[in-house]
């Protein structure tokens, strides 16, 4: 199982799913209608490290974070 959490203002409860790559997670998240306004501007972290490659493979227990646009300070 892969866990997916949605940070800051997205306000969506965490999801769990089976997936072998980040690309698979992306495909499944695009089916969630309440994410349609978010995905194009969100960055992604895998186990708390920012990632940039959809081909990365996943293993059981991995945690994916979805990070919407930021404004610290």
């Amino acid at each position, binding site marked *: 199982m892969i866990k997916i959490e949605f940070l800051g203002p997205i306000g969506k409860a965490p999801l769990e799913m089976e997936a072998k790559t980040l690309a698979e997670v992306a495909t499944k998240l695009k089916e969630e209608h309440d994410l349609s306004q978010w995905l194009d501007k969100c960055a992604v972290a895998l186990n708390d490290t920012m990632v940039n490659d959809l081909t990365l493979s996943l293993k059981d227990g991995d945690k994916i974070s979805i990070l919407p646009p930021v404004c*610290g300070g």
Partner: protein
Amino acid sequence: MELYHGALDTKEIFGRWLDEESQSNYGAYIPFVGTIRAEDGIEALSFDIYEPILQQWFDDWQEKAQALGAKVKMAHAIGDVPVHSSSYISAVFSSKRKVALVLIETFVEDFKANAPIWKYDVKEGQRIYAEERSTPMTGAGLFQ
């Protein structure tokens, strides 16, 4: 890196950081103090922080600073921060003036662009995401 619930005690932080490095032989100390401006009828700003990635972001900057013979420090508020009080202080220490002046600028600008912190306007007790002032992080859109 220091996170606080509510407004920062700016003077305490400035003074303590000064004392911490008083024998380190740095010649330049440049803090950046961010204060909540009264505008658009807000009572406060409010912040969410995702600490594990913020800590990584900060540790990466500490390494970059060390490679230049410098040091960075940072404090940020979590939750509500009233107008005219401080939500954010970062600082650079360096033996060299020019290194410090360039580093504080790149450090603060990268903080604004990539620190995992979300800002909300507080109006009549409501928390409203500051969407228009927010910036997609580097690499955003991977799942689009």
